[in-house]
């Protein structure tokens, strides 16, 4: 088995630009790691979860989906090149698997699959997390995986597309046998406290053991920034609206947020989720209780983003911690 330096992977990923729309983690001006094109900045594979959700390449924040001008109607064109996205964490890959299911059941979301079909997803894992943290190895749920063994990255492949790409990799240095196994063991030994916390919170919610007063107190600390929804890779809600300019009508879809009063407001003005605590509860209840019933899985995979982005410290982990302390 071979391992590749970050520079070798950078060259490799850049070489794929003629066949793929390549998106990789790069470092932006203030040090934020963003998902850009390889030439957008210094490569930044290491560092863990990206601040913005990587699933946005398939389900963007703001998407023009249809244009009507006089008699002409244009729908979104198929993507020119398949998207190759590097920089998912193992948790992000779990999220992607979930929204793939979500968008393909019943009504298959053609706008999502326009970008998702034919795409290639690469997870980055191993010894390259933030502040030396070990990033969980996905071991699947993606096409290929770059597993950091310290300095260099091993390449594991899980799909035909992944294998095809890996075959084009040049350079690399052989590593001793058993390195991958060691890394996997290290990954398996990662603490599972947060998973346990979430499962415990989920049980409390399913058993209806969390009173409204708890949510009321949490919602007092919510400033309705909507950030938790906007960074969550399993938040799939969107608003559809039109803008008219001259003879042109453009239809957009945009990420929505269940933290907004307008999200559930009825035409009359009546709102079944009119109180803020109901909306605060909704987001977490949905991920830890409703989705468990509907999809047989928690739909929070602990990517960590809502805890990072929440200005007042009420991301899902923080809330579950309080919940379990009080009622667990």
């Amino acid at each position, binding site marked *: 088995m071979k391992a590749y330096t970050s520079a070798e992977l950078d060259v490799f990923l850049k070489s794929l630009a003629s066949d793929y729309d390549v*998106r990789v983690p790069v470092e*932006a*001006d*203030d*040090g*934020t*790691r*963003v998902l*850009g*094109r390889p030439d*957008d900045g210094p490569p930044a594979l290491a560092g863990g979860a990206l*601040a*913005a959700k990587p699933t*946005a390449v398939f389900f*963007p*924040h*703001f*998407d023009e989906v249809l244009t009507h001008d006089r008699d002409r109607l244009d729908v979104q064109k198929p993507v020119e090149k398949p998207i190759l996205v590097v920089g998912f964490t193992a948790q992000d890959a779990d999220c992607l698997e979930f929204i793939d299911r979500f968008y393909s059941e019943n009504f298959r979301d053609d706008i999502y699959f326009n970008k998702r079909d034919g795409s290639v997803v690469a997870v980055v894992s191993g010894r390259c997390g933030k502040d030396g943290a070990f990033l969980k190895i996905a071991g699947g749920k993606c096409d290929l995986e770059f597993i950091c063994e310290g300095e260099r990255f091993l390449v594991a492949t899980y799909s035909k597309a992944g294998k095809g790409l890996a075959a084009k990799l040049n350079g690399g240095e052989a590593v001793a046998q058993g390195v991958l196994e060691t890394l996997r063991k290290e990954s398996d030994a990662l603490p599972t406290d947060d998973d346990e916390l979430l499962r415990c919170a989920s049980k409390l919610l399913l058993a209806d053991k969390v009173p409204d007063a708890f949510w009321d107190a949490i919602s*007092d*600390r919510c*400033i*309705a*920034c*909507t*950030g938790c929804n*906007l*960074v969550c890779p399993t938040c799939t809600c969107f*608003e559809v*609206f039109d*803008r*008219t*300019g*001259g003879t*042109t009508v*453009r239809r*957009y879809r*945009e990420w*929505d*947020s269940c933290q*907004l*009063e*307008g999200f559930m407001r009825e035409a009359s*003005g009546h709102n079944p989720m009119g109180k803020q605590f109901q909306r605060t509860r909704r987001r977490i209840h949905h991920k830890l209780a409703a989705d468990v019933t509907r999809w047989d899985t928690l739909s929070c995979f602990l990517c960590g983003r809502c805890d*990072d*982005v*929440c*200005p*007042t*410290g009420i991301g899902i982990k923080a809330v579950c911690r309080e919940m379990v302390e009080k009622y667990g």
Partner: protein
Amino acid sequence: MKRTLTTCPYCGTGCGFYLVADDAGKLVAVEPATGHPVARGQLCVKGWSAFEFVNHPDRLTVPLIRRNGKLEEASWDEALDVVAGRLAEVRDKHGADALAFFSSAKTTNEENYLMMKLARAVFKTNNVDHCARLCHASTVAGLAATFGSGAMTNSVSCVEASDCIFVTGSNTTEQHPLIGSRIIKAVRNGAKLIVADNRRIRLARLADIHVRWLNGTDVPFVNAIMNVIISEGLEDREFVETRTENYEELKKVVAKYPPEEAAKICRITPKEIRDVARMFAAAERGMIIYSMGITQHTHGVDNVKSLANLAMLTGNIGRVGTGVNPLRGQNNVQGACDMGALPDVYSGYQKVTDAAIRAKFEKAWHVTHLPAEVGHTVTTAINAAAEGDIHGLYIMGENPMMSDPDLNHVREALGKIDFVVQQDIFLNPTSEFADVVLPATTYAEKDGTFTSTERRVQQIRKAARPVGQSRADWEILCDVAARLGYDGMRYGSPSEVMDEIASVTPIYGGMSFERIGAVGLQWPCLDRDHPGTPVLHVGKFSRGKGLFGPADYRPSAEMPDEDYPLLLSTGRCYFHWHTGTMTRRSRLLDREERFPYVEIHPADAKKLGIRDRDWVFVATRRGEIRVMARVTDVVIEGVIFMTFHFEEAPANLLTINALDPVAKIPEYKVCAARVRRAP
């Protein structure tokens, strides 16, 4: 796909984020900037939406000239010729002081500097001002008098270092959400929170003490707090003795406000006053945060001075976690003031009445005879226009037909002006009076700097191509100056303008685009080696010793009476920004608050037979508008609250054109009103 680090165009907190443009160059997202010292990878709902209005089809894309009463498309050459020609004509016919220039707290430092340079160097008038007049003019005057510097004394990061935060007249989580969120975190970490605001704002729910005193009784309230502190010996004697002057006068004045007396005026209990006094005086690091609930009064300067007095009395100045912290409203209202878009000062608060300062600017700008008289403010210019004394008005990025008090008066005034040029990104109600409309770019389509409320000078960077033929405000201003034959406003970029600003503005002396970099630099920054200043007045006040500025209670200009029994207070909501031109063109923000509304207490609503979501008429002596009733105990009985975001029911049709005698700020927070159900 391109990501550009920039600064939020909404409030004065100064959050950094990335604007994301797609391959076609259209903005499609905002992403967090984790390395930004203020935002720290977090944003509020407006920040997350700050890309949306930029590509809205309503954007102005070509210059417009009014012909036969209609605004018609024109070329840039035509439009600029008309602007330069007509303004010069007014100057030649009526004198330079018949012109007024409204600069803009939404535009960059460089553009504000150029606007005041255009007014002063090219037209030779000091009639230049901007909307700071409407929000924090009282702060600039009040803190300059007491401390020697009219800006927020401390930094945003100080909030989390404070052990007692006194918030008054600031709905911080809605109007400066990323500062409000730090208050919430500080409280979670054990800091005490005092909220003095009669609306039950979010922070009130988390406060140790929430005082709901009557609007406009700020001076007796704060005087009574100081009365308790002095009478119980809780003052910081060493600080008072070594760092301040005029203490005896303060003692004399506050002695007239024992809690029992003040409580009657404020309609609260003496216990509430004592509790606040003791809690704040006990703090090791006590911080005062305020905003327009304090400033927008006919006694706004007195209010500000009273808070400054309280901070000095308790020694809460010049240290991390303390201070008097006015939260500036607009993204660049601090900068617009710093740049001298004010009628009495050049950039860096250098007085126009000082001959040596004028001589310095004459030399730097290669002009002679800079005007020595203080000019008109935004509010007095409108009054002068109504008297027929203003004949030409240049409005950059302001919307007086929505934002100024008593809109019928504004309408009359604007209607009397011979020539109005408006430079903006969208048409708005003020456009009705424009003879020429010049399409400007948004913050996302140009370079420059904004200065946030904590005096942090930060860059904005061009993230998208300007729509249509729109041009950056600085380019337009320079073109106007060139057409008038002035050679001193030719620049290759905003960075060159900043270099000039640094050369004539001591507090910005060390600023350059290169040094400002990704995270900004806080003024005073005196030279290229100066690290910037997170906390003012450390060891010594800007004016030497802090000056106690005691004030007596003066009632508001128009209090409720039999005909108009309710007290109307105006302000903003979380989801909209000022006159709504940007947020009402952002889908989720617009969806969230769709209708103009009035908050009314359940008891008042019941008396008037009004139910939640009924349409009602709200009237004052100046006008009447139709809005939706929001029946809520967020307001106290007898007080109603409205926002000024809605063009279809502009709250400023109702407000009173009564001004603070010093700061000339209007009394947006108090006037008498009545409400009836709409038939």
